[in-house]
């Protein structure tokens, strides 16, 4: 199997003006490392508002101008430059955006799904493909001429999904495809995403809903305060003893069906000098306060914790 996407030590920060001309750098993603293979779904799980979507935006090269990015992103072994991103996006790499607000309110949905065309011939060709994909997701011809405000939440999601699939991408990035949908629509979305995997595609699923990640993904990355703290196989999430990071355990035990267990602590707002989970960690060591552990491999699991593995022993 080929590695489709490889993200190494990606950090994203924003420059903000705080008062007058005083500028301030706001770090959103720190040292993020993750990969997606063909035939694989990898989920990134983190609380909403924590900056997960920016990972998707940086892969596609649509970050705002005041952002700074370091680290590298590779697609099939080639480093993704802005030029290459622009060439591949919409074709080999596609995004299912987070909300209906990404649709153009003044354009019929079929036209936005087809997108930009050079001439009449290309339009006709793409129109056929668009019909085919819409049909597959149960959107009949009457939907083609609707405007986004006329769609229900579930239909809008299908339009977003179809739009992403018209280019027949190899890598799909799904950014929070499920919140606010009822159970039936969530099940459908999960099936849709799994089907993509069956067809040999790679999917990076960005979500805050553990259930969706558990039902679809092969591996799950836990995102905490801008850091990936653990990447574990989905099987291991049914038994908290097999999870390594203390936050991951707390998170899984907080699910309603796992006892709805309460634990204290909120994610730090400002930059911390050590491990981001230091303040709330039950097994913290002295060195955790001022040193950030590296993401290392331990028995096939990627983990960022001083308590695990020997590599992190001395900073």
């Amino acid at each position, binding site marked *: 199997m080929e590695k489709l996407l490889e993200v190494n030590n990606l950090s994203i920060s924003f420059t903000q003006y705080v008062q007058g001309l005083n500028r301030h750098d706001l770090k959103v993603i720190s040292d993020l490392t993750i990969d997606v293979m063909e035939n694989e779904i990898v989920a990134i799980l983190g609380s*909403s508002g924590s900056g997960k979507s920016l990972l998707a935006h940086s892969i596609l090269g649509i970050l705002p101008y005041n952002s700074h990015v370091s680290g590298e992103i590779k697609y099939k072994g080639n480093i993704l430059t802005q030029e290459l991103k622009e060439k591949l996006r919409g074709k080999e790499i596609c995004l299912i955006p987070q909300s209906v607000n990404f649709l153009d309110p003044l354009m019929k949905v079929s036209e936005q799904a087809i997108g930009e065309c050079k001439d009449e011939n290309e339009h006709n060709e793409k129109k056929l493909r668009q019909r085919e994909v819409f049909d597959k997701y149960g959107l009949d011809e009457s939907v083609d001429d609707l405007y986004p405000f006329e769609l229900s939440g579930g239909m809008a999601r299908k339009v977003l999904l179809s739009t992403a699939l018209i280019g027949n991408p190899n890598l799909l990035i799904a950014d929070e495809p499920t919140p606010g949908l009822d159970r039936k629509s969530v099940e459908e979305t999960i099936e849709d995403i799994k089907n993509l995997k069956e067809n040999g595609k790679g999917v990076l699923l960005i979500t*805050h809903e553990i259930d969706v990640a558990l039902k679809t993904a092969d591996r799950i990355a836990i995102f905490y305060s801008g850091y990936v703290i653990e990447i574990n196989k989905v099987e291991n999430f049914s038994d908290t003893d097999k999870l390594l990071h203390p936050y991951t355990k707390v*998170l899984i035990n*907080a699910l309603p069906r796992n006892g709805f267990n309460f634990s204290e602590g*909120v994610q730090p707002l400002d930059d911390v000098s050590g491990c981001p989970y230091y303040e709330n960690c039950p097994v913290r060591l002295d060195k955790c306060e001022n040193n950030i552990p590296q993401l290392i491999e331990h028995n096939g699991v990627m983990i960022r914790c001083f308590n695990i593995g020997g590599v992190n022993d001395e900073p």
Partner: protein
Amino acid sequence: MNLKANNISFSYNKKREILKDVSLSLNSNQIIGLIGDSGSGKSTLCKILAGYITNYDGDVTIDGKKIPDKDFYPVQLIFQHPEKTMNPKWKMEKVLTESWNPPQNLKDMFGLKDNWLTRWPNELSGGELQRFSILRALNPKTKFIIADEISTMLDALTQVQIWEALINYSKANNIGILAVSHDIELLEVLCDDILHFEDINNL
């Protein structure tokens, strides 16, 4: 106290009726769950209960009396997206104290950090903002809370934390809660009783 909705009917336009003869009853010591499909009208019912929509048929009463709309409204609604309910040009301290000035122990219970108070709403995450919007709604004059998908956008741990705090406070102060959600597992943990929206809506 008892909050009662009697035969509520409502439609946004003449073509489609959303609510028909919906009745429900909520006591102060109760937590009742409400579950239903997207777009079925749950949020519309919430807005009617909390006094945001007034041109409906039927009536909403507390202990059999109409709710006066000239005073603090005793039924408070908490929304799914706290960022949409706050003035972006007010700092969090003003956002919170617009309603009341909660004592320190209550701020601690909701995990509000002092340095959050001097921030703007766009500088906090959804989970942090939701803590503010719940505490803001818990003014001493509040008798009932309508929680419309308040933890849908939050991670599992934050979800436990805010529900724990909200329920503890409500039990201690005799506040009734209507919890609306898609998540049946969550409602089963939280609620004394669960209503299915299609069973109470007589369309």
